[in-house]
């Protein structure tokens, strides 16, 4: 589904602090599976996630999504593709403070032009499924960490994406909540979504919910099983 060929990514290119976060990645990620990128901090897993999720373009090399080359797409198309096909759960959840859970969940759908009632109904359905129906109108900063993450998950799913990308999803959760999150992930794979996450949490890596673990170090893939 997602194919990376000889992908390299540099930051501050041409400056004295030039830094290659990814250095020759070849990777093929299958659809409908849960794939985990694993490695110490600074190993390039987050950068790789940004490339996979069309948040950034590789400095060199090719990226393909469902056979289509996306490394050369202009920003606008990249944004559209990102909105339609990818859902993101960020490490810090990145919810917008001051807005209610429902408003946060509806946000990615705003540029889509879908009727508000449709989006609101969908948001209600997702919150219900994630057992947050009772917190629908609560401001997100009043929610607990676990609830905030579930809001973030609902937000990632509002546009019904094929791919769910999660960056260090369990970093801010205790064991119970982390297990709960993995169960949710498994259900997504079960309904045909592709899940890609980065983590160095053994709980995630050893979990049965994760089908494939890719180990990274210094911007390269060191182990893939």
């Amino acid at each position: 589904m997602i194919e990376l060929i000889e992908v390299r990514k540099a930051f501050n290119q041409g400056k004295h602090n030039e830094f290659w976060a990814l250095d020759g990645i070849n990777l093929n990620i299958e659809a409908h599976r849960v794939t985990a990128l694993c490695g110490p901090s600074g190993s390039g897993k987050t950068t790789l996630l940004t490339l996979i999720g069309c948040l950034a373009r590789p400095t060199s090399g090719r990226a393909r999504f469902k056979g289509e080359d996306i490394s050369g797409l202009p920003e606008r198309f990249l944004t559209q593709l990102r909105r339609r096909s990818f859902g993101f759960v960020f490490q810090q959840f990145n919810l917008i403070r001051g807005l209610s859970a429902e408003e946060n969940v509806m946000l990615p759908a705003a540029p889509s032009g879908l009727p508000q009632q449709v989006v609101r109904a969908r948001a209600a359905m997702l919150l219900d499924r994630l057992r947050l129906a009772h917190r629908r109108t609560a401001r997100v900063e009043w929610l607990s960490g676990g609830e905030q993450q579930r809001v973030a998950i609902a937000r990632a799913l509002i546009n019904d994406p094929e791919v769910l990308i999660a960056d260090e999803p369990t970093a801010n959760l205790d064991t119970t909540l982390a297990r709960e999150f993995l169960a949710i992930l498994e259900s997504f794979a079960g309904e045909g979504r592709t899940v890609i996450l980065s983590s160095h949490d053994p709980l995630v890596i050893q979990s049965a919910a994760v089908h494939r673990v890719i180990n990274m170090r210094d911007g390269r893939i060191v182990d893939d099983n």
Partner: protein
Amino acid sequence: MNIWIEQQRALIDFTLASLARRKARNLGLLAVYTLLVFVLASVALFSHALRHEATRVLADAPEIVLQRMVAGRHDLIPPGYLEKIGRIRGVQKMEGRLWGYYYDPVIKANYTFMAPSAGGIERGTIVIGAALERVRGLAQETGISFRAYSGKLYSFVVADILPHDSELVSADLVLMHEDDFRAFFAFPAGHYTDIALAVANPQEVRNIAAKLADALPDSRPILREEMLRTYASIFSWREGIVLAILSGAILAFVILAWDKAAGLSAEEKREIGILKAIGWETGDVIRMKIWEGVLISLTAFLVGYVAAYLHVFRAGGVLFEPVLKGWAVLYPRFQLAPEIDGLAVATLFFFTVVPYTAAVLVPIWRAATTDPDAVMRS
């Protein structure tokens, strides 16, 4: 089209939700903004309507008023001047006018005494303006005494009161018989305050004025077009104590609005990053911010303008009264006809909505063009 509308609805929803987070602050800003529009619009509406009213009412003022100067000061027209003018061609009608000022120490106000050339007022009686009626507590058939500059006391009976509707031109008038006027001010017979001339052909007015100045070298002709122009420029936009006082407030508001709109906090920057990461285009972020600017400034404009309209034309501009009144004791009560200068309203609209929206937009442009992956990296 439908999609576009739904998009804008969603963007407006988000804008409102985010404005609601700092409700007190944004409502406060909106209130100050509205107040500013209200004052500016009130000044513009009031001054334009007043200008219009003055030029309409005075449209048939004498074509030329001839004053005589003595030692550089306005003086009485001595006998013989009317005869001299009579020989100038093109002068259709002329009459010596009798008017002057009287200071009433009782209420510390100035009146304009006048003996209408058309007559119609009995000796010993006066016709007074409505403000006088009010301030001195006069009524028809009541008597009043004025002490002349000679020290002698003159008594009059109020024969009539000028229409209340005409206060704007007649508030302080005291009309009396010519003989009374001459006696009161000790005007020698044959002398006049000035001369009003009617000219048959309006094209000729300037020529006649030049001839008058030639024939009567100590005279000064004032043309009607000059009088009307005086009123066309009265309270013009640039003048006006209100605007002068306001300029400080306007400046303060501009700084406040600029600070509020342009000062992009780290929080806002983070939020824009999130929006971009979850699939908003730069254009969506900018559209959302345009809505924010337009909603605030349009609301301020509409509410401020409607309030100003009601204030000026339905409440008689009550808030201006203390300013316009100054130290005057006699102040006319008047309602202005709502003559509205479309261009001024359009200008006000432009200068309320555009700069604010622009101020909202400028920093957003910078933030919105940052990379969407910034969120993940931080």
